Protein backbone atom coordinates (compact mmCIF):
# COMPACT_ATOMS: atom_id res chain seq x y z
CA UNK A 1 0.00 0.00 0.00
CA UNK A 2 2.86 2.31 0.90
CA UNK A 3 4.42 1.76 -2.49
CA UNK A 4 1.08 2.39 -4.18
CA UNK A 5 0.59 5.64 -2.31
CA UNK A 6 4.11 6.87 -3.06
CA UNK A 7 3.88 6.01 -6.72
CA UNK A 8 0.67 8.00 -7.16
CA UNK A 9 2.16 10.98 -5.35
CA UNK A 10 5.35 10.79 -7.40
CA UNK A 11 3.30 10.52 -10.61
CA UNK A 12 1.40 13.67 -9.66
CA UNK A 13 4.57 15.56 -8.84
CA UNK A 14 6.11 14.55 -12.15
CA UNK A 15 2.94 15.48 -13.99
CA UNK A 16 2.87 18.95 -12.47
CA UNK A 17 6.55 19.40 -13.26
CA UNK A 18 6.00 18.22 -16.84
CA UNK A 19 3.11 20.66 -17.11
CA UNK A 20 5.49 23.47 -16.18
CA UNK A 21 8.23 22.39 -18.56
CA UNK A 22 5.94 21.78 -21.52
CA UNK A 23 4.14 25.07 -21.00
CA UNK A 24 0.78 23.58 -21.79
CA UNK A 25 -1.92 26.05 -22.53
CA UNK A 26 -4.97 25.30 -20.41
CA UNK A 27 -6.94 28.19 -21.88
CA UNK A 28 -6.39 27.65 -25.60
CA UNK A 29 -9.77 27.24 -27.26
CA UNK A 30 -10.04 24.93 -30.26
CA UNK A 31 -13.58 24.81 -31.59
CA UNK A 32 -12.85 21.81 -33.81
CA UNK A 33 -12.39 19.38 -30.94
CA UNK A 34 -15.27 20.36 -28.61
CA UNK A 35 -16.02 17.46 -26.25
CA UNK A 36 -13.87 15.08 -28.29
CA UNK A 37 -12.72 11.92 -26.53
CA UNK A 38 -9.08 11.04 -25.80
CA UNK A 39 -6.79 11.17 -28.81
CA UNK A 40 -3.06 11.43 -29.52
CA UNK A 41 -3.21 15.19 -29.61
CA UNK A 42 -5.41 15.52 -26.53
CA UNK A 43 -4.61 12.59 -24.25
CA UNK A 44 -7.60 13.13 -21.98
CA UNK A 45 -9.86 14.65 -24.63
CA UNK A 46 -11.19 18.19 -24.81
CA UNK A 47 -13.85 20.05 -22.83
CA UNK A 48 -16.94 21.98 -23.90
CA UNK A 49 -14.84 24.86 -25.24
CA UNK A 50 -12.35 22.59 -26.92
CA UNK A 51 -9.68 23.16 -24.25
CA UNK A 52 -7.26 20.34 -23.49
CA UNK A 53 -8.50 18.47 -20.40
CA UNK A 54 -5.04 17.22 -19.42
CA UNK A 55 -3.63 20.74 -19.42
CA UNK A 56 -6.55 21.95 -17.32
CA UNK A 57 -6.19 19.09 -14.87
CA UNK A 58 -2.51 19.94 -14.37
CA UNK A 59 -3.44 23.59 -13.95
CA UNK A 60 -6.22 22.65 -11.52
CA UNK A 61 -4.06 20.42 -9.31
CA UNK A 62 -1.79 23.36 -8.61
CA UNK A 63 -4.67 25.54 -7.47
CA UNK A 64 -6.07 22.66 -5.45
CA UNK A 65 -2.77 22.04 -3.68
CA UNK A 66 -2.17 25.73 -3.03
CA UNK A 67 -5.62 26.08 -1.45
CA UNK A 68 -5.19 22.89 0.58
CA UNK A 69 -1.76 23.89 1.88
CA UNK A 70 -2.74 27.48 2.68
CA UNK A 71 -5.93 26.52 4.47
CA UNK A 72 -4.27 23.72 6.42
CA UNK A 73 -1.43 25.99 7.49
CA UNK A 74 -3.64 28.90 8.57
CA UNK A 75 -6.24 26.78 10.37
CA UNK A 76 -3.49 24.87 12.11
CA UNK A 77 -1.78 28.02 13.38
CA UNK A 78 -5.03 29.52 14.67
CA UNK A 79 -6.22 26.22 16.08
CA UNK A 80 -2.94 25.50 17.87
CA UNK A 81 -2.76 28.95 19.41
CA UNK A 82 -6.37 29.01 20.59
CA UNK A 83 -6.36 25.39 21.69
CA UNK A 84 -3.11 25.69 23.66
CA UNK A 85 -4.23 28.84 25.47
CA UNK A 86 -7.55 27.22 26.39
CA UNK A 87 -5.99 23.94 27.44
CA UNK A 88 -3.22 25.62 29.39
CA UNK A 89 -5.28 28.08 31.39
CA UNK A 90 -8.56 26.16 31.61
CA UNK A 91 -11.36 27.84 33.52
CA UNK A 92 -13.86 30.23 32.05
CA UNK A 93 -11.95 31.04 28.86
CA UNK A 94 -11.72 27.34 28.15
CA UNK A 95 -15.42 26.77 28.78
CA UNK A 96 -16.30 29.67 26.50
CA UNK A 97 -14.05 28.35 23.77
CA UNK A 98 -15.61 24.90 23.97
CA UNK A 99 -19.02 26.51 23.66
CA UNK A 100 -17.92 28.34 20.51
CA UNK A 101 -16.49 25.18 18.96
CA UNK A 102 -19.71 23.33 19.81
CA UNK A 103 -21.64 25.94 17.85
CA UNK A 104 -19.33 25.66 14.84
CA UNK A 105 -19.57 21.89 14.95
CA UNK A 106 -23.37 22.12 14.99
CA UNK A 107 -23.20 22.94 11.29
CA UNK A 108 -22.78 19.60 9.56
CA UNK A 109 -19.84 19.08 7.21
CA UNK A 110 -19.08 21.89 4.82
CA UNK A 111 -22.48 23.58 5.24
CA UNK A 112 -21.01 26.56 7.08
CA UNK A 113 -18.22 26.90 4.53
CA UNK A 114 -20.86 26.86 1.79
CA UNK A 115 -22.80 29.56 3.61
CA UNK A 116 -19.73 31.76 4.15
CA UNK A 117 -18.54 31.28 0.58
CA UNK A 118 -22.03 32.15 -0.65
CA UNK A 119 -22.22 35.48 1.13
CA UNK A 120 -18.56 36.39 0.65
CA UNK A 121 -18.92 35.84 -3.09
CA UNK A 122 -16.85 33.62 -5.39
CA UNK A 123 -13.10 33.86 -5.86
CA UNK A 124 -9.89 32.27 -4.63
CA UNK A 125 -9.29 34.44 -1.57
CA UNK A 126 -12.91 34.22 -0.40
CA UNK A 127 -12.79 30.46 -0.88
CA UNK A 128 -9.71 30.25 1.35
CA UNK A 129 -11.31 32.58 3.89
CA UNK A 130 -14.50 30.51 4.03
CA UNK A 131 -12.57 27.29 4.55
CA UNK A 132 -10.35 28.89 7.22
CA UNK A 133 -13.31 30.35 9.11
CA UNK A 134 -14.71 26.87 9.59
CA UNK A 135 -11.54 24.77 9.63
CA UNK A 136 -9.71 25.98 12.75
CA UNK A 137 -12.25 24.41 15.13
CA UNK A 138 -11.08 20.81 14.91
CA UNK A 139 -7.44 21.82 15.48
CA UNK A 140 -8.43 23.92 18.47
CA UNK A 141 -10.22 20.97 20.05
CA UNK A 142 -7.42 18.55 19.30
CA UNK A 143 -4.72 20.88 20.66
CA UNK A 144 -6.75 21.72 23.73
CA UNK A 145 -7.18 18.05 24.64
CA UNK A 146 -3.49 17.35 24.09
CA UNK A 147 -2.40 20.40 26.08
CA UNK A 148 -4.60 19.48 29.00
CA UNK A 149 -3.08 16.03 29.28
CA UNK A 150 0.49 17.22 28.72
CA UNK A 151 0.12 20.17 31.09
CA UNK A 152 0.50 17.96 34.14
CA UNK A 153 3.47 15.97 32.92
CA UNK A 154 6.37 16.06 35.31
CA UNK A 155 8.80 17.71 32.93
CA UNK A 156 6.37 20.58 32.44
CA UNK A 157 5.93 21.02 36.17
CA UNK A 158 9.68 20.82 36.65
CA UNK A 159 10.22 23.53 34.08
CA UNK A 160 7.50 25.61 35.68
CA UNK A 161 9.02 25.36 39.12
CA UNK A 162 12.38 26.36 37.67
CA UNK A 163 10.71 29.58 36.62
CA UNK A 164 9.99 29.03 32.93
CA UNK A 165 7.47 31.50 31.52
CA UNK A 166 4.21 30.51 29.91
CA UNK A 167 5.35 30.92 26.29
CA UNK A 168 8.41 28.80 26.99
CA UNK A 169 6.32 26.13 28.65
CA UNK A 170 3.86 26.07 25.81
CA UNK A 171 6.21 26.17 22.86
CA UNK A 172 9.29 24.41 24.21
CA UNK A 173 7.82 21.85 26.56
CA UNK A 174 4.29 21.07 25.41
CA UNK A 175 4.09 21.72 21.66
CA UNK A 176 6.99 19.44 20.65
CA UNK A 177 5.21 16.50 22.29
CA UNK A 178 2.19 16.82 20.09
CA UNK A 179 3.86 17.42 16.74
CA UNK A 180 3.29 13.87 15.59
CA UNK A 181 -0.44 14.07 16.29
CA UNK A 182 -0.65 17.39 14.47
CA UNK A 183 1.38 16.19 11.50
CA UNK A 184 -0.91 13.20 11.01
CA UNK A 185 -3.98 15.37 11.38
CA UNK A 186 -2.62 17.89 8.90
CA UNK A 187 -2.03 15.17 6.30
CA UNK A 188 -5.61 13.97 6.52
CA UNK A 189 -6.89 17.51 6.48
CA UNK A 190 -5.01 18.22 3.23
CA UNK A 191 -7.23 15.62 1.62
CA UNK A 192 -10.43 16.85 3.21
CA UNK A 193 -9.67 20.49 2.30
CA UNK A 194 -9.14 19.37 -1.29
CA UNK A 195 -12.54 17.69 -1.25
CA UNK A 196 -14.11 20.77 0.32
CA UNK A 197 -12.50 23.05 -2.27
CA UNK A 198 -13.74 20.81 -5.08
CA UNK A 199 -17.22 20.76 -3.52
CA UNK A 200 -17.40 24.54 -3.31
CA UNK A 201 -16.07 24.96 -6.84
CA UNK A 202 -18.54 22.29 -7.97
CA UNK A 203 -21.33 24.44 -6.59
CA UNK A 204 -19.90 27.47 -8.40
CA UNK A 205 -18.66 29.08 -5.20
CA UNK A 206 -14.95 28.66 -5.63
CA UNK A 207 -12.48 29.40 -8.36
CA UNK A 208 -14.03 31.12 -11.33
CA UNK A 209 -13.63 30.46 -15.04
CA UNK A 210 -11.36 30.69 -17.01
CA UNK A 211 -9.09 29.45 -14.22
CA UNK A 212 -9.11 25.68 -14.04
CA UNK A 213 -10.42 23.94 -10.96
CA UNK A 214 -11.33 20.30 -10.52
CA UNK A 215 -14.65 21.03 -8.90
CA UNK A 216 -15.76 23.32 -11.70
CA UNK A 217 -14.53 20.79 -14.27
CA UNK A 218 -16.59 18.09 -12.58
CA UNK A 219 -19.65 20.30 -12.76
CA UNK A 220 -19.13 20.86 -16.49
CA UNK A 221 -18.47 17.15 -16.86
CA UNK A 222 -21.81 16.30 -15.24
CA UNK A 223 -23.52 18.81 -17.50
CA UNK A 224 -22.09 17.19 -20.66
CA UNK A 225 -22.17 13.65 -19.32
CA UNK A 226 -24.52 12.32 -21.97
CA UNK A 227 -22.34 13.41 -24.89
CA UNK A 228 -18.89 13.20 -23.34
CA UNK A 229 -18.77 10.77 -20.38
CA UNK A 230 -14.95 10.70 -20.50
CA UNK A 231 -14.82 14.27 -19.17
CA UNK A 232 -16.39 13.65 -15.76
CA UNK A 233 -14.85 10.19 -15.40
CA UNK A 234 -11.29 11.34 -16.02
CA UNK A 235 -11.46 14.39 -13.77
CA UNK A 236 -13.16 12.36 -11.03
CA UNK A 237 -10.58 9.60 -11.27
CA UNK A 238 -7.75 12.12 -10.96
CA UNK A 239 -9.28 13.69 -7.87
CA UNK A 240 -9.93 10.30 -6.27
CA UNK A 241 -6.41 9.03 -6.95
CA UNK A 242 -4.80 12.08 -5.38
CA UNK A 243 -7.06 11.97 -2.34
CA UNK A 244 -6.50 8.25 -1.94
CA UNK A 245 -2.74 8.75 -2.11
CA UNK A 246 -2.77 11.53 0.48
CA UNK A 247 -4.99 9.50 2.83
CA UNK A 248 -2.78 6.43 2.48
CA UNK A 249 0.18 8.68 3.23
CA UNK A 250 -1.69 9.77 6.35
CA UNK A 251 -2.23 6.14 7.35
CA UNK A 252 1.46 5.46 6.89
CA UNK A 253 2.46 8.46 9.01
CA UNK A 254 -0.08 7.52 11.66
CA UNK A 255 1.33 4.01 12.00
CA UNK A 256 4.93 5.19 11.80
CA UNK A 257 4.48 7.90 14.42
CA UNK A 258 2.19 5.67 16.47
CA UNK A 259 -0.67 8.13 16.75
CA UNK A 260 -4.13 7.09 17.83
CA UNK A 261 -6.84 9.23 16.30
CA UNK A 262 -10.01 9.96 18.21
CA UNK A 263 -12.25 9.40 15.25
CA UNK A 264 -11.21 5.80 14.69
Amino acid at each position, binding site marked *: *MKFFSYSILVCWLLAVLAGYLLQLNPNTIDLNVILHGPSIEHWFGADDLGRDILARILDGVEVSLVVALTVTLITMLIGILVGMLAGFYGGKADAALM*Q*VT*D*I*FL*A*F*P*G*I*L*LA*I*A*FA*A*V*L*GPGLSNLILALCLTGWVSYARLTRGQTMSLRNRQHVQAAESLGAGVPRLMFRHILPLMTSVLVVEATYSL*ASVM*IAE*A*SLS*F*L*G*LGIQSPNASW*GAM*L*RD*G*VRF*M*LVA*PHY*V*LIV*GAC*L*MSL*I*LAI*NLGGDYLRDKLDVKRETE
Partner: protein
Amino acid sequence: MFLLRRFTSFFTVIFGVLLLTFLLIHVVPGDPVEVMLGESASMADREALRTELGLDQPLLQQFGSYLSKLGHGDFGHSIHTKSPIIDLVKTRYPATVKLALLSLLIGLVIGIPMGIYAALKASHWQDFVVTIVSVRLSAMPAFWLGPVLMLIFAVWLGWLPVSGMESNTSIILPAITLGFGLSAILTRMTRTSLLEVLNDDYIRTARAKGLSERVVILRHALRAALLPIITIVGLQMGSLLAGTVITETIFSWDGIGRLLVESIEKRDYPVTQACVLVVALSYVVVNLCTDILYKLADPRVRDSGIRTVS
Protein backbone atom coordinates in the same frame (compact mmCIF):
# COMPACT_ATOMS: atom_id res chain seq x y z
CA MET B 1 -28.74 15.19 35.81
CA PHE B 2 -27.41 14.06 32.46
CA LEU B 3 -30.59 15.20 30.74
CA LEU B 4 -30.43 18.59 32.40
CA ARG B 5 -26.85 19.17 31.34
CA ARG B 6 -27.55 17.90 27.87
CA PHE B 7 -30.53 20.21 27.45
CA THR B 8 -28.61 23.25 28.68
CA SER B 9 -25.89 22.70 26.12
CA PHE B 10 -28.58 21.99 23.53
CA PHE B 11 -30.13 25.40 24.05
CA THR B 12 -26.82 27.28 24.07
CA VAL B 13 -25.86 25.60 20.83
CA ILE B 14 -29.25 26.46 19.30
CA PHE B 15 -28.76 30.06 20.37
CA GLY B 16 -25.29 30.12 18.84
CA VAL B 17 -26.54 28.61 15.60
CA LEU B 18 -29.25 31.28 15.41
CA LEU B 19 -26.71 34.02 16.08
CA LEU B 20 -24.28 32.73 13.45
CA THR B 21 -26.94 32.34 10.74
CA PHE B 22 -28.26 35.79 11.64
CA LEU B 23 -24.80 37.28 11.24
CA LEU B 24 -24.33 35.61 7.84
CA ILE B 25 -26.07 38.39 5.97
CA HIS B 26 -23.81 40.93 7.65
CA VAL B 27 -20.72 39.21 6.32
CA VAL B 28 -21.72 40.20 2.78
CA PRO B 29 -19.00 42.59 1.58
CA GLY B 30 -20.47 46.00 0.84
CA ASP B 31 -24.18 46.65 0.91
CA PRO B 32 -26.18 43.40 1.09
CA VAL B 33 -29.22 45.09 -0.44
CA GLU B 34 -27.27 46.19 -3.48
CA VAL B 35 -25.71 42.74 -3.87
CA MET B 36 -29.13 41.08 -3.72
CA LEU B 37 -31.04 43.44 -5.98
CA GLY B 38 -28.28 44.30 -8.43
CA GLU B 39 -27.00 47.73 -9.30
CA SER B 40 -29.93 48.60 -11.54
CA ALA B 41 -32.51 48.50 -8.74
CA SER B 42 -34.34 51.72 -7.96
CA MET B 43 -33.78 53.65 -4.73
CA ALA B 44 -37.34 52.93 -3.59
CA ASP B 45 -36.94 49.16 -4.07
CA ARG B 46 -33.71 49.21 -2.12
CA GLU B 47 -35.20 51.14 0.75
CA ALA B 48 -38.23 48.81 0.81
CA LEU B 49 -36.00 45.73 1.05
CA ARG B 50 -33.77 47.38 3.63
CA THR B 51 -36.80 48.08 5.78
CA GLU B 52 -38.24 44.61 5.26
CA LEU B 53 -35.00 42.96 6.33
CA GLY B 54 -34.68 45.47 9.17
CA LEU B 55 -31.18 46.39 8.03
CA ASP B 56 -31.80 50.03 8.97
CA GLN B 57 -32.08 49.18 12.65
CA PRO B 58 -29.38 48.65 15.27
CA LEU B 59 -27.80 45.18 15.15
CA LEU B 60 -29.11 44.04 18.52
CA GLN B 61 -32.65 45.06 17.65
CA GLN B 62 -32.35 43.25 14.33
CA PHE B 63 -31.35 40.07 16.11
CA GLY B 64 -34.26 40.45 18.51
CA SER B 65 -36.83 40.81 15.76
CA TYR B 66 -35.16 37.98 13.82
CA LEU B 67 -35.64 35.69 16.81
CA SER B 68 -39.20 36.77 17.47
CA LYS B 69 -40.15 36.31 13.80
CA LEU B 70 -38.63 32.83 13.79
CA GLY B 71 -40.57 32.08 16.94
CA HIS B 72 -43.75 32.79 15.01
CA GLY B 73 -42.65 30.53 12.17
CA ASP B 74 -41.85 33.50 9.96
CA PHE B 75 -38.66 33.09 7.93
CA GLY B 76 -39.33 36.24 5.90
CA HIS B 77 -39.90 36.43 2.16
CA SER B 78 -37.91 35.24 -0.79
CA ILE B 79 -36.51 38.22 -2.69
CA HIS B 80 -36.80 36.37 -5.94
CA THR B 81 -40.31 34.88 -5.85
CA LYS B 82 -41.73 37.09 -3.07
CA SER B 83 -43.34 34.02 -1.53
CA PRO B 84 -42.94 33.28 2.19
CA ILE B 85 -39.81 31.22 2.81
CA ILE B 86 -41.61 28.96 5.25
CA ASP B 87 -43.71 27.63 2.34
CA LEU B 88 -40.60 26.90 0.30
CA VAL B 89 -39.04 25.08 3.23
CA LYS B 90 -42.25 23.14 3.86
CA THR B 91 -42.35 21.84 0.29
CA ARG B 92 -38.62 21.08 0.03
CA TYR B 93 -37.79 19.73 3.47
CA PRO B 94 -39.79 16.47 3.29
CA ALA B 95 -37.97 15.47 0.09
CA THR B 96 -34.62 15.83 1.85
CA VAL B 97 -35.78 13.89 4.90
CA LYS B 98 -37.05 11.11 2.64
CA LEU B 99 -33.72 10.98 0.83
CA ALA B 100 -31.70 11.06 4.05
CA LEU B 101 -33.76 8.29 5.67
CA LEU B 102 -33.49 5.99 2.66
CA SER B 103 -29.72 6.58 2.51
CA LEU B 104 -29.51 5.78 6.20
CA LEU B 105 -31.39 2.54 5.57
CA ILE B 106 -29.07 1.64 2.69
CA GLY B 107 -26.06 2.43 4.85
CA LEU B 108 -27.33 0.18 7.65
CA VAL B 109 -28.40 -2.68 5.38
CA ILE B 110 -25.01 -2.80 3.64
CA GLY B 111 -22.75 -1.66 6.46
CA ILE B 112 -23.75 -3.86 9.39
CA PRO B 113 -23.71 -7.26 7.60
CA MET B 114 -20.41 -6.34 5.94
CA GLY B 115 -18.99 -5.39 9.33
CA ILE B 116 -20.12 -8.67 10.88
CA TYR B 117 -18.62 -10.58 7.96
CA ALA B 118 -15.30 -8.75 8.29
CA ALA B 119 -15.20 -9.35 12.05
CA LEU B 120 -15.90 -13.08 11.66
CA LYS B 121 -13.21 -13.37 9.01
CA ALA B 122 -10.81 -11.20 11.02
CA SER B 123 -7.25 -11.32 9.70
CA HIS B 124 -8.26 -13.42 6.70
CA TRP B 125 -7.97 -11.92 3.24
CA GLN B 126 -11.74 -11.25 3.14
CA ASP B 127 -11.39 -8.99 6.17
CA PHE B 128 -8.47 -7.21 4.56
CA VAL B 129 -10.42 -6.53 1.37
CA VAL B 130 -13.53 -5.33 3.20
CA THR B 131 -11.49 -3.05 5.46
CA ILE B 132 -9.45 -1.47 2.69
CA VAL B 133 -12.54 -0.96 0.56
CA SER B 134 -14.56 0.54 3.41
CA VAL B 135 -11.80 2.77 4.74
CA ARG B 136 -11.19 4.32 1.38
CA LEU B 137 -14.69 4.36 -0.08
CA SER B 138 -15.88 6.51 2.77
CA ALA B 139 -13.71 9.27 1.34
CA MET B 140 -15.37 9.06 -2.06
CA PRO B 141 -17.09 12.37 -2.62
CA ALA B 142 -20.64 12.48 -3.96
CA PHE B 143 -19.69 14.48 -7.03
CA TRP B 144 -17.62 11.54 -8.21
CA LEU B 145 -19.74 8.59 -7.12
CA GLY B 146 -22.98 10.26 -8.25
CA PRO B 147 -22.00 10.76 -11.89
CA VAL B 148 -20.47 7.28 -12.08
CA LEU B 149 -23.67 5.66 -10.83
CA MET B 150 -25.68 7.88 -13.14
CA LEU B 151 -23.60 6.86 -16.14
CA ILE B 152 -23.78 3.16 -15.40
CA PHE B 153 -27.37 2.69 -14.27
CA ALA B 154 -29.21 5.50 -16.01
CA VAL B 155 -27.29 6.22 -19.20
CA TRP B 156 -25.71 2.92 -20.21
CA LEU B 157 -28.04 0.34 -18.68
CA GLY B 158 -31.11 2.56 -18.72
CA TRP B 159 -32.56 0.90 -15.59
CA LEU B 160 -33.21 4.06 -13.60
CA PRO B 161 -34.12 7.65 -14.41
CA VAL B 162 -31.16 10.02 -14.83
CA SER B 163 -32.44 12.75 -12.55
CA GLY B 164 -35.48 14.66 -11.37
CA MET B 165 -38.13 13.21 -9.08
CA GLU B 166 -40.98 12.30 -11.40
CA SER B 167 -40.97 8.53 -10.94
CA ASN B 168 -40.79 6.44 -7.79
CA THR B 169 -37.43 5.01 -8.76
CA SER B 170 -35.81 8.44 -9.03
CA ILE B 171 -34.76 8.33 -5.39
CA ILE B 172 -32.65 5.18 -5.74
CA LEU B 173 -29.50 6.64 -7.29
CA PRO B 174 -29.20 9.70 -5.03
CA ALA B 175 -29.92 7.52 -2.01
CA ILE B 176 -27.18 5.06 -2.95
CA THR B 177 -24.78 7.93 -3.58
CA LEU B 178 -25.43 9.27 -0.10
CA GLY B 179 -25.74 5.92 1.68
CA PHE B 180 -22.50 4.53 0.27
CA GLY B 181 -20.12 6.56 2.40
CA LEU B 182 -22.22 5.85 5.47
CA SER B 183 -22.17 2.11 4.81
CA ALA B 184 -18.38 2.17 4.62
CA ILE B 185 -18.10 3.88 7.98
CA LEU B 186 -20.65 1.53 9.53
CA THR B 187 -18.77 -1.49 8.21
CA ARG B 188 -15.62 -0.30 9.91
CA MET B 189 -17.35 0.50 13.20
CA THR B 190 -19.35 -2.73 13.35
CA ARG B 191 -16.18 -4.70 12.72
CA THR B 192 -14.16 -2.95 15.44
CA SER B 193 -16.94 -2.99 17.97
CA LEU B 194 -17.86 -6.65 17.36
CA LEU B 195 -14.23 -7.74 17.61
CA GLU B 196 -13.92 -6.05 20.99
CA VAL B 197 -17.01 -7.78 22.33
CA LEU B 198 -16.15 -11.22 20.94
CA ASN B 199 -13.33 -11.62 23.47
CA ASP B 200 -15.58 -10.97 26.46
CA ASP B 201 -16.28 -13.58 29.10
CA TYR B 202 -20.00 -13.74 28.50
CA ILE B 203 -19.46 -14.75 24.90
CA ARG B 204 -17.30 -17.63 26.07
CA THR B 205 -20.06 -18.55 28.51
CA ALA B 206 -22.64 -18.47 25.75
CA ARG B 207 -20.49 -20.72 23.61
CA ALA B 208 -19.82 -23.03 26.55
CA LYS B 209 -23.55 -23.36 27.09
CA GLY B 210 -23.62 -24.96 23.66
CA LEU B 211 -25.47 -22.19 21.86
CA SER B 212 -25.10 -22.20 18.12
CA GLU B 213 -22.60 -19.75 16.68
CA ARG B 214 -25.47 -17.96 14.97
CA VAL B 215 -27.25 -17.27 18.25
CA VAL B 216 -24.02 -16.26 19.97
CA ILE B 217 -23.20 -13.71 17.29
CA LEU B 218 -26.63 -12.32 16.56
CA ARG B 219 -28.26 -12.41 20.00
CA HIS B 220 -25.37 -11.98 22.39
CA ALA B 221 -22.46 -10.25 20.70
CA LEU B 222 -24.24 -8.02 18.22
CA ARG B 223 -26.57 -6.56 20.83
CA ALA B 224 -23.70 -5.20 22.83
CA ALA B 225 -21.68 -4.28 19.78
CA LEU B 226 -24.44 -2.20 18.25
CA LEU B 227 -24.46 0.35 21.06
CA PRO B 228 -21.59 2.47 19.74
CA ILE B 229 -23.19 2.23 16.30
CA ILE B 230 -26.06 4.41 17.50
CA THR B 231 -23.65 7.25 18.18
CA ILE B 232 -21.95 6.85 14.83
CA VAL B 233 -25.28 6.88 13.00
CA GLY B 234 -26.25 10.07 14.80
CA LEU B 235 -22.96 11.77 14.00
CA GLN B 236 -23.08 10.62 10.42
CA MET B 237 -26.55 12.08 9.93
CA GLY B 238 -24.68 15.38 9.83
CA SER B 239 -22.54 14.49 6.84
CA LEU B 240 -25.62 12.94 5.30
CA LEU B 241 -27.51 16.21 5.64
CA ALA B 242 -24.57 18.21 4.31
CA GLY B 243 -24.08 15.66 1.53
CA THR B 244 -27.58 16.29 0.30
CA VAL B 245 -26.47 19.70 -0.97
CA ILE B 246 -24.24 18.18 -3.63
CA THR B 247 -26.21 15.00 -4.25
CA GLU B 248 -29.45 16.88 -4.74
CA THR B 249 -27.71 19.26 -7.14
CA ILE B 250 -26.35 16.39 -9.22
CA PHE B 251 -29.63 14.49 -9.40
CA SER B 252 -31.95 17.54 -9.56
CA TRP B 253 -33.67 16.30 -6.42
CA ASP B 254 -35.89 19.13 -5.16
CA GLY B 255 -34.88 19.10 -1.53
CA ILE B 256 -33.57 21.71 0.84
CA GLY B 257 -29.97 21.27 -0.37
CA ARG B 258 -30.91 22.19 -3.92
CA LEU B 259 -32.98 25.09 -2.61
CA LEU B 260 -29.84 26.32 -0.86
CA VAL B 261 -27.77 26.15 -4.04
CA GLU B 262 -30.51 27.82 -6.09
CA SER B 263 -30.84 30.61 -3.55
CA ILE B 264 -27.08 31.19 -3.63
CA GLU B 265 -27.12 31.42 -7.42
CA LYS B 266 -29.94 33.97 -7.29
CA ARG B 267 -28.37 35.82 -4.36
CA ASP B 268 -31.59 35.28 -2.46
CA TYR B 269 -29.85 35.52 0.92
CA PRO B 270 -32.89 35.27 3.20
CA VAL B 271 -33.60 31.85 1.63
CA THR B 272 -29.93 30.87 1.98
CA GLN B 273 -30.06 31.85 5.63
CA ALA B 274 -33.23 29.82 6.21
CA CYS B 275 -31.83 26.71 4.51
CA VAL B 276 -28.60 26.81 6.51
CA LEU B 277 -30.59 27.28 9.69
CA VAL B 278 -33.01 24.43 8.98
CA VAL B 279 -30.24 21.95 8.14
CA ALA B 280 -28.13 22.93 11.16
CA LEU B 281 -31.10 22.74 13.52
CA SER B 282 -32.05 19.30 12.19
CA TYR B 283 -28.53 18.13 12.88
CA VAL B 284 -28.53 19.51 16.42
CA VAL B 285 -31.87 17.85 17.17
CA VAL B 286 -30.73 14.53 15.69
CA ASN B 287 -27.62 14.70 17.86
CA LEU B 288 -29.66 15.37 20.97
CA CYS B 289 -31.93 12.41 20.20
CA THR B 290 -28.91 10.18 19.57
CA ASP B 291 -27.38 11.09 22.89
CA ILE B 292 -30.58 10.43 24.79
CA LEU B 293 -31.25 7.23 22.89
CA TYR B 294 -27.75 6.02 23.63
CA LYS B 295 -28.19 6.59 27.34
CA LEU B 296 -31.54 4.83 27.28
CA ALA B 297 -30.24 1.89 25.29
CA ASP B 298 -27.25 1.22 27.53
CA PRO B 299 -28.51 -0.81 30.51
CA ARG B 300 -25.42 0.12 32.55
CA VAL B 301 -26.60 3.70 32.44
CA ARG B 302 -30.33 3.14 32.40
CA ASP B 303 -30.46 0.91 35.47
CA SER B 304 -27.90 2.57 37.69
CA GLY B 305 -28.81 6.12 36.86
CA ILE B 306 -25.13 6.97 37.00
CA ARG B 307 -23.48 8.40 33.96
CA THR B 308 -20.68 6.13 32.90
CA VAL B 309 -17.89 7.20 30.68
CA SER B 310 -18.73 6.04 27.22
